[in-house]
């Protein structure tokens, strides 16, 4: 009998997850594993993911790869799956607590934020002390990716973040404000316009992802300020990397969905073969699949790759 595996992503509207699915499908084909894929309809669609986990249990698979829509809400379903003897690996987004899953293969989102924050501060040099910063976040719900990236950026930039799970409680005068983008271009543009109305002198813009960054850039360009503002982002999608090459985005932290997926499939294959469970990286409660800073204006002390190099590694 063939080994069965499941991949459950947050949505299939986001190229990140589309890529993850491609990686998993390719790896599964290579290992002779039958893969079923599921996704929520929109981000935060907890109930569909629970239903998917249940279907996987019912289908008797050996392992489940899942990017939880809600890192807490999915815990019970996953616990149930593990009780049924299934290897559950969280991809991209860790559970809370992380040991809910057998293992976590994820980007260190906080680290991703720190990298771009440090890069922005170093690029500005002395001007960092008088920077005017805008943050373009995901949505009103402030889910973990959202605050981890944001607070990581601020930490990297040298801002006191107060509650590290809370966006907007900072009192650093350099912060102009934050607005939500829903992670797409339209939201990015509108949010940028709004914040420019609050303070037209904004010169550093953090964005939750590259589509939001592209939207922000359009807003800046419409006001003729695109060359005076530093935009940083997280993701590493190919359109984003190309935007780094073209100077739209100053720097972005690249993550590796393909790697997450293929590693996940390999882990399931190993588990199915002899029951070995993957181990987390030392000192972390998850297996870091790595983040890499992508910029064409490297600064000393922060390792980075150029957009050219990144184009070979990017996803989507």
């Amino acid at each position, binding site marked *: 009998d063939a080994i069965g595996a499941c991949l459950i992503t947050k949505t*299939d509207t986001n190229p990140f997850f589309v890529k993850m699915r491609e990686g998993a499908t390719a790896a599964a084909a290579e290992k002779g594993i039958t893969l*079923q*894929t*599921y*996704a*929520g*309809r*929109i981000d*935060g*669609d*907890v*109930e569909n993911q*629970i*239903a*998917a986990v*249940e*279907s996987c249990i*019912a*289908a008797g698979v050996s392992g489940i790869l899942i990017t939880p*829509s*809600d*890192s*807490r*809400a*999915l*815990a*019970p*379903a996953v*616990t149930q799956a593990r009780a049924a003897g299934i290897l559950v690996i969280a991809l991209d987004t860790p559970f*809370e607590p992380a040991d809910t899953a057998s293992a976590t293969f994820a980007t260190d989102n906080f680290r991703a934020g720190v990298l771009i924050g440090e890069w922005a501060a170093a690029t500005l040099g002395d001007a960092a002390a008088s920077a005017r910063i805008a943050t373009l976040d995901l949505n*009103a*719900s*402030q*889910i973990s990716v959202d605050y981890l990236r944001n607070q990581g950026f601020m930490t990297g930039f040298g801002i006191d973040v107060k509650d590290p799970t809370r966006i907007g409680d900072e009192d650093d005068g350099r912060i102009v404000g934050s607005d939500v983008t829903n992670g797409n271009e339209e939201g990015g543009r509108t949010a940028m316009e709004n914040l420019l109305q609050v303070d037209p002198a904004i010169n550093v813009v953090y964005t939750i992802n590259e589509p939001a960054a592209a939207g922000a850039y359009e807003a800046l360009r419409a006001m003729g300020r695109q060359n005076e503002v530093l935009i940083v982002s997280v993701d590493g999608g190919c359109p984003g990397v190309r935007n780094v090459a073209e100077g739209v985005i100053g720097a972005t932290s690249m993550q590796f969905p393909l790697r997450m997926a293929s590693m996940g499939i390999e882990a399931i294959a190993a588990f199915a073969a002899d029951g070995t469970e993957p181990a987390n990286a030392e000192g972390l409660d998850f297996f870091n699949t790595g983040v890499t800073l992508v910029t064409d204006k490297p600064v000393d002390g922060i390792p980075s790759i150029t957009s050219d190099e990144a184009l070979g590694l990017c996803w989507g």
Partner: protein
Amino acid sequence: MTTTPPPPPRPGPVSGRGPSDFETGLAASPQGVARFEAPRRTPLAGIQHLLHATPTLVPVIVLALSILVFGLIAGERFFSPFNLSLILQQVSIIGILAAAQSLIVLTAGIDLSVAAIMVLMSVVSGKLAITMGVPAPLALGASFALGTLAGMLNGLMVARLKLPPFIVTLGTWNIFFALNLWFSGAQSIRSQDIDAAAPLLKFFGNSFRVAGANITFGSILMVVIFAVLWYVLNRTAWGRHVYAIGDDKAAAELAGIRTDRVLVQVYALAGFICAIGAWAAIGRVGSISPQSFYEGNLQSITAVVIGGISLFGGRGSIMGALFGALIVGVFQSGLRLAGVDVLWQVFAIGWLIIIAVAIDQWIRKVSA
């Protein structure tokens, strides 16, 4: 046949008391009702007629058919008692929301805020019981009361201010959603924390096994809610008033029904059911997530509509909504097991909605 000539009309100003002269001929008129031979029917029209006589049959047949079809496609995995009970479990929350929605749709309203009320109430009971340490029964009681109040707020605006339900609940959807995020701080409450502080909140997550099927208390709750509502709607005066209001509000008012009061009660009851749904949702999801069920409003409407309850009010059985929810569940489960992409699942549900209602319309086209 001979006719008696009519009596001569009485003269001038003082009018006659008695039938007009021309009505004398009436006496001999036949008293029966007209009868025509029934026209021959094509087999299709015959089926149409049968279903027209018992409209609740339609969703049942659709359900049976879809179970059959998916059974053939997806094989025995689909047919297993376990999977079937799983479907029941999976639709239980949307089913409960659909029960609340049905009540409102029967009054010719629509409620875009049911899921928002439910999520808000699960957050309320969770916050109270776990974060603030209120005893679980009290926390649940508070959430029931607030849910009823939230529904009542909708109802008051619909009944007293005469605002269209669509608009009222579009507004309160936004309001409840904002309150939910504010109150929860957008943070889920973890399963372990619930277990530790207030396991009662997860009561409906318990289950038992019968012949391979895994029946959760939540599934049973859903069925019970539908059964009770069916009784209330069909066997009590209040229930008939709900139908009468949906049928023709002005007429119901003139017939002596306190329509405004009943409307407020309907919305309040719907809010209460949503609060019960919130309790069940905690059991189902295992934790309390302020972000879940964002699409629950529209999903509940979908179930109601597929179940053959008219959006114009007053027509349809609440049991239809149960079958409607199950049909959607069977579709989703079947498509999933058949390995169909979410994308095409969404696509299929879109057509399902249209086709189900088109069939319903076709059946209703026959006059009795």
